[in-house]
């Protein structure tokens, strides 16, 4: 059914009788041309679009291009975190190489891990063979012949990713507890000697190294519990 512009304007002002309004809305469900006319005659649309499309670009978007260098350390944490995540998106598609823009790989890992929730990992269900293949690829990326799956009681290895930081490979192993809470066990080549417990991005963490490789266990659990898990890993002989 065709409606005049005046009728459509009256509809937009909610001035039509219920029966006619109902008829228009029934037609709208199947008539895209009627919808286009309504939108075109709606004076409110350009006013709102004009306002919202010119909202100042949020600070974190200014640093979103992965290739842009940034003044690490001088940026507010939230901005850095935003830049990291979208930089990560770009890096993911470009081959997992992240620019060195952080004040340390541990903070980069922490900001990434802080975005994880149980729902983030709930759908991860790679089978044993797939995870084993991921471990082999990860081992090769950091110059190891073998990278064994970490064994922690109550935790299951759900994913292994090859990330990058400062041009070097960074391995992230996602461990999910029986309670659904994810932990990350990360490793990189080298050992800067910064070991021990630390609170990073609101998460508990524990770092250690063996002179050739450095490790970080991190997650949103109590620091004492995380320390125990880190000790369990070290005493179990798990090593890169």
């Amino acid at each position, binding site marked *: 059914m065709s409606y005049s512009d005046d009728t459509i304007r009256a509809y937009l002002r909610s001035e039509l009788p219920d029966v006619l309004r109902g008829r228009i809305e029934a037609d709208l469900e199947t008539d895209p041309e009627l919808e286009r006319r309504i939108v075109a005659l709606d004076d409110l649309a350009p006013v709102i679009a004009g306002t919202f499309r010119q909202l100042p670009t949020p600070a974190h*978007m200014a640093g979103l291009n992965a290739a842009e260098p940034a003044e690490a350390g001088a940026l507010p944490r939230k901005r850095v975190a935003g830049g990291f995540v979208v930089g990560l998106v770009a890096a*993911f598609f470009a081959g997992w190489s992240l620019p060195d823009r952080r004040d340390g790989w541990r903070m980069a890992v922490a900001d990434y891990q802080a975005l994880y929730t149980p*729902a983030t990992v709930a759908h991860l269900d790679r089978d044993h063979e797939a995870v084993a293949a991921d471990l082999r690829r990860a081992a090769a990326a950091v110059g190891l012949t073998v990278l064994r799956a970490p064994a922690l009681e109550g935790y299951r290895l759900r994913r292994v990713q090859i990330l990058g930081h400062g041009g070097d490979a960074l391995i992230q192993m996602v461990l999910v507890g029986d309670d659904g809470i994810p932990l990350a066990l990360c490793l990189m080549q080298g050992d800067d000697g910064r070991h021990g417990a630390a609170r990073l991005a609101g998460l508990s963490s524990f770092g250690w190294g063996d002179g050739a490789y450095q490790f970080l266990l991190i997650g949103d659990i109590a620091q004492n519990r995380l320390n125990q898990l880190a000790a369990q890993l070290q005493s179990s002989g798990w090593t890169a």
Partner: protein
Amino acid sequence: MFFRRHVEKELGRQIVNCRPAVWRFALSLSGRPDIADDLAQATYLRALERVHQWRQDGRLEAWLLTICRSIWLNELRAQSIRQAGCLAAAEAGRFAMGMADTETNIFASEVYAKVMELPEAQRATVELVYVEQFTYREAASILDVPIGTIMSRLATARAALRHLNDAEWPKAKGKRT
């Protein structure tokens, strides 16, 4: 393998191009720029993890905004309410509008404030239809409501914002972006 790599790289570029729309939608859901930042970031991360689910015959923005809404409802909304006590609309003065002149800035600030005073559901609907220019059907799909609900929300929002309709929109009045 090479073709898939190419497709993924192109998709990554497109996702980056969608970030203003994702952030605006996150703002319309949360009502607060700081939470919108977190929500947008979580959306990019989730899209990255689920890139294999992207169907190339669909509109990428719609897929991202559907993810955004899902994260908001399932993960961040309750947490945000707990932290804030309630979801207050973003204060109008939070942004210095980016328009050219003072008169336009004042008007834009008023528009922003009034839209952000709408209830969350109306705000999100207005943002999708008026700002991102999704069709009613697309907006209904993103928000997972019947198309009639979209019409109803728009009608209620129009009534609340009616006085803006009568105001003079400096320089931009009547122009469609």
